[in-house]
């Protein structure tokens, strides 16, 4: 089964790029290719001009399921990537404590993941990746399973963190509103087999107030233009779900 067709995408340094597409368009496949968790059948992934084989350690990956280690406390989870790098305990502690406070998880350092809410776990998931400062961070629908209000709060926090840490973020979502609100550029993918259909810049200045952005004319214009592009693909994607003989 071919999941992706002719996917050609240049990602700029320190940009916030969002990728939207109908369900099953190969978004997650693209992610796994970029990280190097499995190899492309044809073509190659160039990272800073060099062909990439195997897992690319310069790229962080925030998955939809939080994948926190249940046997580690919140703090120990955040410090995990630093532990792998042999960072001394005092420095690990300092970094994790800063991030934990930054996203309002102070007081829960010694809690185990099952004792935290979905929103708290997803915040921990994101700062775990930020902790070791990869140059590029991929996020695969990290706010997918959360309720609308928690999502909004976490989106805002993510933008603040991004402004502070200035990493390149590639953010996958099926929610066009989220894609436009967060991004410098939005990529629309076609239905399976996935292909890049449209790439559009979002002309809204930063810092953005996500609580008010939906009323912004530029937001609405960009949203409408991209929705026309996406709508067609969503319908095509839905057609694929018809019962097959």
């Amino acid at each position, binding site marked *: 089964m071919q999941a992706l067709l002719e996917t050609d995408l240049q990602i700029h340094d320190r940009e916030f790029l969002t990728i939207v597409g109908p369900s099953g368009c190969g978004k997650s496949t693209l992610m796994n290719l970029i990280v190097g968790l499995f190899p492309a059948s044809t073509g190659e992934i160039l990272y800073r001009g060099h062909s990439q084989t195997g897992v690319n350690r310069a790229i962080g990956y925030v998955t939809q399921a939080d994948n926190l280690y249940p046997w580690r406390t919140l703090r120990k989870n955040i410090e995990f990537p630093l532990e*792998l790098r042999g960072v001394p305990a005092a420095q690990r502690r300092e970094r994790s404590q800063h991030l934990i406070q930054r996203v309002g998880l102070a007081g829960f350092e010694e809690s185990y993941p099952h004792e935290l809410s979905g929103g708290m776990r997803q915040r921990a998931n994101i700062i775990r990746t930020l902790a070791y400062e990869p140059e590029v961070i991929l996020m695969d629908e990290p706010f997918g399973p959360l309720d609308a209000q928690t999502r909004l709060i976490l989106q805002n926090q993510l933008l603040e963190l991004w402004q502070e840490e200035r990493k390149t973020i590639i953010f996958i979502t099926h929610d066009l509103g989220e894609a436009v609100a967060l991004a410098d550029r939005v990529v629309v993918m076609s239905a399976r087999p996935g292909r890049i259909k449209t790439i559009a810049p979002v002309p809204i200045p930063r810092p953005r107030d996500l609580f008010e952005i939906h009323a912004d004319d530029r937001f609405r214009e960009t949203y409408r233009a991209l929705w026309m592009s996406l709508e067609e693909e969503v319908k095509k994607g839905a057609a694929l779900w018809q019962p097959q003989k």
Partner: protein
Amino acid sequence: MATAEMNRPASALPPGAANVEDDLKAWAAEERRAKWKLMIVRVLLAIVLLTIWEYGTDRWFDALWFSSPLRIARHFMSWVQDDLLSHLVITLRETFIGYTSGTVLGIAFGTLLARFQFVGKVLDPFILALNGIPRIALAPLFIIWFGIGEPSKIVLAGMLSFFLCFYATLSGLRSVDAAYISIARVMGATERQTFFKVVLPAASPWIITAMKVSVPFALVGAIVGEFMAATAGLGFKIQLYTAQFDTTGAVTGVLVLMVVVIMFNTGLNRLEQHVLRWRPDNSVAGGSEVQ
């Protein structure tokens, strides 16, 4: 924002409770009373059962069949002053040595087979066949191979623990969520780090549960070995009493074993709860601890 998500027990209190602390105190006192009540009823039940047993002996049934609580108590007192302790020490020593070597070897072999997947796959059907043997049935053979002394009991106790730990380790390591491993690799874990920091802890509930279940099994192994052929140990004494139709002695031996197993299980359940406290469901599952 974080406070909005804290799990405060607010919902457990009536709305507008004037004094929350008083309510909490009343609730705690209620809990304590319920606990005491439970304990008292349990003790009463035990007394009733023991009385029926004692009263019924030689009235409704012959003392030869079940002995009686007073006889057992008297026998226990004299046995303690005689050689109960030395027999108990022998049985426990066999159990301990067998258990320790069995679990260590079982975990080591399970780890090796999970690590070297090809070897593991080759050996899978053989392991399945081995697993089909009712292991206690090997006990007589072990007496032939290792003699009637302690070694045959140690091997028997060890074998029972070995297989439990071996299978649990193998299944545990094989069932680790692949996402945990991928995410560790993406974060930069080496093979070694992935194994020790992710795979092993993820499989630890399996391994720890097997280590816990192995303790009574190792004891059973030692006792069965002593039943077969031995010169000392609690199993040997129970066997000897039975052969002499000394029901009192045999039942006393069984009760001593019961107390030993209950003590082991209580300690092990506590230990398991502490080590696996990170698990969402760390209630006493399948444990025989009575609170």
